[in-house]
């Protein structure tokens, strides 16, 4: 059994890498749509099947070998391991990857074979990096895979790199997450400096010996990395822009998997966080603020993908808040359900964008009759996100809210409850406008046919089925993790559900029943509306900082480099050249002139050799050469005598 589970572990992680290597290294495979996508999908199918097999067996195994042997520290370990947390992440990553890769077959149908192959190459690399990330055993290895998923995110956001918005968004995502990653790197090295190991089990044993302020500092820095990756306030600005990438990419990377890497990192290092509470309180506040902020910003967005992006920011805030309140289990459950219903929402939105060639919700409308299938799918996703019974989002969000309530974080509980209300409002605002709206901005043009081939609908239905039934598996989920699901019975038990339904009702009043005009409300609340539309000027602040602080610094550095460093080099070179030009004139080409030089030199040496006995007191030679050689001769004679 032991050997089997190790093989299965390899079968989960390695196939996407092999697919990446094949597609990446052999251009003939990449240039053919069938082979590139076929290899990639085959690899992820193997991964998904192996993940499911592993979940069924639920073994406890690892593959570990020494990577860098060190003498004065513990050796640096490279290896993969499995525990229930890893297995659930395996399941999420491989299943959503599979769904997205199948879906992309049709979504990217119009791409040229070359960029189609490039897409699947990156998809395979991403699947490998994410699977490797979740199963990593050492902090250094986590960091390597962390950067790899960041790289894939960059490459896939900028997939349509000829569009300036896309390449700019890719660079922005890379920069902002990088800002957090610097914190992660420093925190990681600080921990290594204190304990001398990157190996997680060893780290957890040695961690209590670290002095408290030091540990707190390193954990704060690691949280910074998690905030960058998981788009937490104030580093959330990259995620909405990341929607410039293809929609399946948004579904996979920017909703289900990569953005939860930050949550997962804190979850993995939870034994460290339990030793010192300040970082956790910080995480809870950041999460709560992000949840509210993301939800508020989602209200005023007109782009369906941006609405979903801000809702992702908001839901990630929920997870962070739960983590900060010590609810690692409930946060992980929300991560699990969110991965499925959010990727479902993205894929459903993608199928609309794919057919209508617009992502503006006001240009859509009246789609309910044209495509009942997508309407149903989007409705399932929206209800799950809003937390309506019996969809999975209801259970996980309930768990988080109840956790906050029972643990006595009343302020956070209230903020998150308001967020839940706003969540269902903006989600159903989008739903009503897109599927039942009048299509106001289409300028007389009739809404086109929505084409939904089975390659697109099948992955969505699978995700939808998981979305519907995953919620009831909460008990099994917590058992699997070795936790106990807390049955909470308070008078507030039904409050989240009521709040969600109120939000839906409000959205209906505004956008479907039209008893209230959203425009009038927007005008009467114009300061708030402006602030929301300007995204609280966050982007402007960053731009200002970039333009004046960073550019100013760059100008100073540039001046220093150009005039002082380069100046020194150029000065030396210039005078060397001048001296050479002078010197070359003595090279006349006449053999007799050279002979003069030789003879003068010989005469100089001759005179020096004559004068040297008289000069030696001035030359400050400690050893008189004649005496020294005499000593050597005498020593040699003595040796001969022996």
């Amino acid at each position: 059994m032991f050997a089997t589970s190790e093989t299965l572990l390899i079968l989960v992680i390695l196939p996407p890498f092999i697919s990446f290597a094949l597609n990446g290294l052999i251009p003939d495979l990449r240039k053919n749509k069938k082979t590139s996508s076929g290899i990639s999908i085959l690899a992820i199918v193997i991964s998904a099947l192996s993940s499911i097999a592993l979940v069924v067996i639920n073994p406890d195994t690892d593959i570990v070998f020494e990577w860098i042997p060190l003498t004065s520290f513990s050796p640096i370990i490279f290896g993969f391991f499995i525990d229930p947390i890893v297995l659930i992440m395996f399941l999420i990553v491989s299943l959503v990857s599979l769904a997205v890769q199948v879906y992309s077959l049709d979504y990217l149908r119009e791409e040229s074979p070359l960029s189609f192959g490039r897409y699947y190459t990156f998809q395979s690399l991403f699947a490998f990096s994410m699977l490797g990330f979740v199963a990593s055993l050492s902090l250094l290895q986590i960091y390597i895979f962390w950067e790899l998923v960041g790289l894939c995110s960059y490459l896939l956001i900028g997939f349509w790199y000829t569009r300036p918005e896309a390449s700019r968004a890719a660079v922005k995502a890379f920069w902002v997450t990088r800002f957090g990653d610097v914190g992660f790197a420093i925190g990681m090295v600080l921990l290594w400096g204190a304990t001398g190991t990157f190996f997680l089990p060893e780290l957890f044993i040695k961690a209590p010996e670290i002095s408290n302020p030091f540990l707190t500092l390193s954990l704060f820095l690691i949280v910074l990395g998690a905030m960058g990756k998981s788009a937490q306030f104030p580093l959330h600005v990259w995620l909405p822009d990341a929607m410039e990438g293809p929609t399946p990419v948004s579904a996979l990377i920017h909703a289900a998997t990569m953005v939860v890497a930050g949550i997962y990192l804190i979850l993995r290092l939870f034994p460290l966080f339990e030793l010192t509470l300040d970082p956790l309180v910080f995480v809870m506040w950041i999460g709560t603020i992000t949840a509210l902020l993301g939800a508020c910003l989602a209200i005023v967005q007109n782009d369906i993908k941006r609405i979903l992006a801000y809702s992702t920011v908001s839901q990630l805030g929920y997870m962070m808040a739960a983590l900060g309140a010590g609810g690692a289990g409930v946060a992980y459950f929300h991560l699990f359900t969110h991965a499925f219903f959010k990727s479902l929402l993205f894929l459903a939105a993608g199928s609309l964008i794919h057919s209508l060639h617009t992502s503006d919700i006001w240009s859509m409308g009246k789609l309910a009759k044209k495509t009942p299938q997508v309407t149903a799918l989007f409705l399932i996703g929206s209800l799950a996100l809003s937390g309506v019974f019996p969809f999975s989002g209801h259970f996980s969000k309930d768990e988080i809210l109840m956790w906050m309530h029972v643990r006595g974080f009343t302020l956070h509980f209230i903020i998150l409850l308001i967020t839940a209300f706003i969540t269902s409002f903006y989600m159903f605002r989008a739903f009503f406008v897109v599927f039942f709206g009048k299509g106001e901005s289409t300028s007389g043009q009739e809404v086109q046919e929505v084409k939904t081939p089975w390659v697109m609908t099948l992955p969505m239905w699978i995700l939808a089925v998981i979305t519907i039934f995953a919620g009831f598996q909460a008990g099994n989920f917590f058992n699997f993790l070795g936790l106990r699901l807390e049955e909470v019975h308070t008078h507030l038990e039904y409050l989240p559900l009521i709040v969600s339904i109120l939000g839906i009702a409000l959205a209906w009043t505004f956008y479907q029943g039209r008893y209230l005009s959203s425009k009038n409300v927007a005008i009467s609340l114009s300061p708030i509306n402006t602030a929301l539309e300007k995204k609280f000027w966050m982007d402007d602040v960053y731009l200002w900082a970039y333009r004046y602080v960073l550019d100013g610094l760059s100008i100073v550095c540039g001046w220093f480099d150009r005039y002082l460093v380069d100046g020194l080099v150029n000065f030396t070179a210039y005078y060397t050249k001048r001296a050479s030009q002078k010197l070359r004139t003595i090279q006349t080409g006449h053999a007799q002139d050279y002979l003069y030089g030789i003879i003068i030199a010989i005469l100089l040496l001759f005179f020096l050799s004559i004068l040297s006995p008289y000069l030696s007191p001035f030359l400050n030679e400690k050893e008189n050469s004649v005496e020294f050689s005499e000593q050597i001769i005498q020593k040699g004679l003595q040796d001969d005598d022996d």
Partner: protein
Amino acid sequence: MSLYHILFLSFLVFSIGLFGVLSRRHVVGILIGIELMFNAANLAIVGIAWSMGVLTGQIIALFGIAITAAEVAVGLALFLLVERLTNTVYADKIDTMRG
């Protein structure tokens, strides 16, 4: 007649030869200067050997004279070629080694 006289003569001949090499413009003049320096060296060798009462110096000098003859032949051949290539036999007109 002592060794010092001989060495002084050798020094004089060597210096005259060196002066010839450095100052003559015609390549044959330079070659004659080189010959003078060679003979000065031979003279010094023979003189020293004579003062020590051995014959080795004379033998070396005989070898030296033979080599000098060969060297003169090579030198003259070189000058012929130089004349053919540069149309001159004056050393100050030949500056192809100029940097």
